[in-house]
């Protein structure tokens, strides 16, 4: 059995971890920078390694702890949905983990009597519905969790992508300055994409 725990990084406290680690033989934390490798009971794995584990279909009691705000996503690959009149973006990685594993998703609760997690079966809930519940729960956790929710917004993703684009433009211009012409076509594409990203931020910016 493979389960997925959705947990903002800011809430990954020893208390919650204790409640997770005791339920499973292996608990993987998906992170690309190895910063959680020293936390007891967690096995830090990269996104790439996670995909390998999922594809290897190793059986056994395991759980993947996912902080959605750290899942790499792009505008072209994300799934959009509206929650509370705001557009959000779901990483395709998240859909892969839940959809492929048909995993049961755990979402932390603020107030509980015995069970600290809300348990959502993949048979009953789509990734979008699970995400909506996750956002609703985050509202109950206070400022830092709400900040995490803001990081999942579509306009934040647009700004992240714009940052990548402007950085790429800078490097392409540097190469042009050195007389390197092989990136000229890429630069044209960058400028086109920049225009459309600015358009997504609102007409007044175009």
């Amino acid at each position, binding site marked *: 059995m493979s389960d997925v725990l959705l947990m903002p990084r800011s809430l990954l406290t020893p208390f919650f971890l204790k409640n997770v680690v005791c339920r499973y033989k292996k608990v993987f934390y998906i992170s690309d920078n190895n910063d959680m490798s020293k936390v007891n009971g967690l096995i830090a794995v990269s996104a790439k390694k996670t995909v390998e584990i999922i594809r290897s279909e190793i059986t056994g009691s395991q759980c993947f702890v996912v902080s959605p705000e750290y899942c790499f996503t*792009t505008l072209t690959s994300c799934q959009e949905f509206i929650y509370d009149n705001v557009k959000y973006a779901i990483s395709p990685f998240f859909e892969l983990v839940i959809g492929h594993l048909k995993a049961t998703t755990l979402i932390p609760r603020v107030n509980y009597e015995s069970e600290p997690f809300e348990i959502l079966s993949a048979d009953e809930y789509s990734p979008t519905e699970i995400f909506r519940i996750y956002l609703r729960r985050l509202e109950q956790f206070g400022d830092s969790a709400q900040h995490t929710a803001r990081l999942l917004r579509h306009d934040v993703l647009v700004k992240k992508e714009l940052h*990548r684009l402007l950085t*790429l433009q800078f*490097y392409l*211009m540097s190469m042009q*300055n050195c007389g390197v012409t092989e990136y000229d076509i*890429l630069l044209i594409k*960058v400028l086109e994409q920049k225009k459309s990203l600015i358009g997504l931020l609102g007409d007044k910016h175009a």
Partner: protein
Amino acid sequence: MLNTTTRLKLFIMSFFDLASNVSTTKLVYGNTRFIGFSRMPSALKTLQFYFSKRLSGEINREILKDASSLSEYLHNNVSFSNTDYWQTCIDHDGPVLLVTPHYGPFAVGCLKACLDFNGIRHVNTFYDPPEKNQSTVTYKDVLSALGYNFTPIFNDRKGLISAIKALRNNEALTMMPDVFEISSQTIYVPFFDHLTCAMTGTAFLARKSSALIAHAYVRHVNFGNIMIDIEKPYLMPVSENAELDIYNQTSVFIASLEKQLRRHPEHWMYLPNLPSRLTSAFSKNSHEIEGKIHSLSIALNLHQGKKI
């Protein structure tokens, strides 16, 4: 314009500012250290940051109150670090673009330009309208205090056309390169070994008009006088690649600002915000640059299936 007692009072008040604005003081001190100053000079420059701010504010208030002795003040108390460079701007046949950020008593610098260019060329100042940026509410009144040779131009579509017309008429235009917003004109350029947002509008105008460009930084000196640090005026190099010209020129504007901040950061209005203006550190190594181009183009889905 400000008597000794007023200046002394403002100097003492700067110490109170230093003590009472703890978070700003920490930011200014930390950012001055980041720029490269050691502890004692950074502490001194933090105090000077508040003093410069108070002096600039008070001078603007005095100008608005009574501008009768303004031209005398500009003549006697405002000087240039290099009078030959300024004379070059005065003697130039064509348009002049003065690039001056939110630094020290920049309004006094603009007024000095109005005075010295009077009868030679009209001075226009390009800035955000008050509806967009409340801090510019008093700009028009302060900058037109001499009563002659000045026109404000607002940063909007109509303003851009007015700026082009002014430069075509061989007038002078002041632009502030340290203001930015996210638009199709935004690019990233180097700044303190990182990347920062900059607008290409100034470089666009420079290229379109072939204006003589002069970088100028206005700062308080000698407890009452004003010095305009002016760099050697130049014409923007122009090639067939307009995008590259504009990118390079914008980099030059920001590199000049960085150079001035490495000497005198204390007069820059945005000094407390320096970290928020910096994005990622950038690579200079060509192998690393190629790697970054490759990974970024994949992340942005611009990759064409082979390592570029």
